[in-house]
């Protein structure tokens, strides 16, 4: 399995998609900060009023928009809570896994590895490593942009960063495994892309949540990947906050097992 991981990491370093997807996240962060600077910072508001983007009344109202917001909340709001991170990272995972099937290189791999779990394991580890790098670098970039925009929001506690990043990594890695399952099932970039965008952006979960909520059973979906990412705790206050790890681990195991079974049953 570690040979497969070495192979995957070699390809990750040489694939453009990993850099393009990360670039999209960074661009979104810069845009978000730019917009907030125009709305909430005095110099930005001046510019916004001058170009007709805001009226003086609107500028006065939006001045308090960043009240109680720290850099961790900003980081979450930028991409993670709305599902943009999941969708973008999911698209990369989809491109990475589907490339094996669409190029036919999977035949070279499976001719060597009868045990299909090795393949699933290596893909999950690769997704986990890239996810870790994405999250950490994205957070560092967010802090840097915050500084460049004149420290719009204060830093959060280090412990809060660690707590949030660890469970977010867990849950987004579980989402990556769901994407791997989609790719193994469909073996199609088009189908995979549609699936990733629908699942990552909450376009499936949110309507379902509303429908189920009419029967007072919607709360179960609060433990879905999308809603956990959107509503999960930003800081550790009590042991019940740890349920996010259970959500991540549960989905990670569930999707890994299903992916392995699907791959074992299918011919290449």
């Amino acid at each position, binding site marked *: 399995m570690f*040979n*497969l991981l*070495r*192979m995957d990491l*070699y*390809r990750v370093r*040489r*694939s*453009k998609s990993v850099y393009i997807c990360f670039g999209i996240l960074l661009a979104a962060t810069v845009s978000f900060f730019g917009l907030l600077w125009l709305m909430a910072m005095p110099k930005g508001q001046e510019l916004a009023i001058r170009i007709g983007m805001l009226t003086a009344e609107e500028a006065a109202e939006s001045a308090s928009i960043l009240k109680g917001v720290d850099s961790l909340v900003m980081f979450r709001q930028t991409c993670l809570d709305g599902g943009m991170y999941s969708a973008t990272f999911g698209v990369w995972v989809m491109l990475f896994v589907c*490339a094996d099937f669409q*190029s*036919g*290189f*999977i*035949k*070279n*791999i*499976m*001719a*060597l*590895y*009868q*045990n299909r779990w090795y393949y699933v394991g290596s893909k999950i580890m690769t997704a986990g490593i890239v996810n870790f790098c994405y999250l950490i670098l994205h957070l560092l970039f967010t802090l840097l942009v915050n500084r460049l925009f004149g420290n719009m929001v204060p830093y959060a506690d280090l412990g809060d960063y660690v707590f949030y990043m660890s469970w977010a990594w867990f849950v987004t890695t579980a989402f990556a495994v769901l994407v791997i399952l989609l790719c193994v099932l469909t073996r199609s970039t088009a189908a995979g892309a549609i699936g990733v965008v629908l699942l990552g952006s909450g376009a499936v979960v949110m309507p379902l949540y509303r429908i189920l909520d009419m029967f007072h059973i919607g709360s179960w979906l609060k433990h879905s990947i999308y809603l956990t990412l959107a509503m999960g705790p930003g800081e550790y206050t009590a042991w019940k906050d740890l349920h996010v790890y259970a959500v991540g681990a549960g989905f990670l195991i569930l999707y890994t097992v299903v992916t392995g079974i699907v791959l074992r049953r299918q*011919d*290449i």
Partner: protein
Amino acid sequence: MPAAGECRKGEKEAVRTGRENTFAIETAALTKMYRNKAAVKNVDLKVREGEIYGFIGRNGAGKSTTLKMLCGLASPTGGEIQLFGKPVSDPAVRRRLGVLIEAAGLYPHMTARQNMVMKARCMGLTDEGSVDEILRLTGLRDTGRKKVKQFSMGMKQRLGVALALLGNPDMLILDEPLNGLDPEGIRELRQLVLKLHEEGKTVLISSHILGELSKISTNYGIIKDGELIEQITRDELEERCQDYFQIQVQDVRRAFALVQEAFPEVQAEVSDSGSIRLYGVKDGAELNQMLMENQIAVYASGFHRMDLEEYFLDRMEGGRQYV
């Protein structure tokens, strides 16, 4: 006391004989069903070590499905596969296989060398020197930074063969490796396969270019509608590809009857609407004369030798009755 040279020769012969008695591939009642349709039915394929086994069949006959099962890419519905005497699931056995199934599986945005390094890492090879050596052997060393998506079909096939050769496998399974190759590429691949055969490797190769296959194969297997209808050696094939005398006549029915009456020892068959094939004819002129005396116009006549293609087509028509 025998000389040292004779001893070595004897040992070599013993090793060769030993190898020939062991099977590189042995399947028993190998079957693959897709829903209720059998793609491969009870195939008992036997390939001895050191053979070049030509696997022949029409499109959809079950060749690729059989080869996929041998490589572990498809699960058999029934039957058994043994490679070098061990089950196909044995990881050690799979390392002795080099495979090229259908189109070469390549990452289009990577170079030839990067694709090779990928496979090398997948196999756990640490020495990248073998990558360059195989690229040289397959004529791809000078492709440099050119991406695979810019390769011609032939170059992709050669890279597919190069990937199969990584790790110095004992057996190569090549499914249509000649596809897309130009005549020079075909000749180079033929020479490569023969060289590998000389090194003692077993090769199982399927191709529709039967002329090429007949130049290299030591054994043949013919598959039809999922059934292996024949397995023969090159010598047996040559024996069966007997000479025949073919005549093209105006009135096939009358000519056929006349030949059967005048030459009862000759076996005759109508090959198409205007031709008759005659097996066992010794004197063609005598036969022509007899037909002309009976006012049958003979447009063409001559002796022919059946090649692999004709033999294959003949078997396809006849099917199991020839087994």
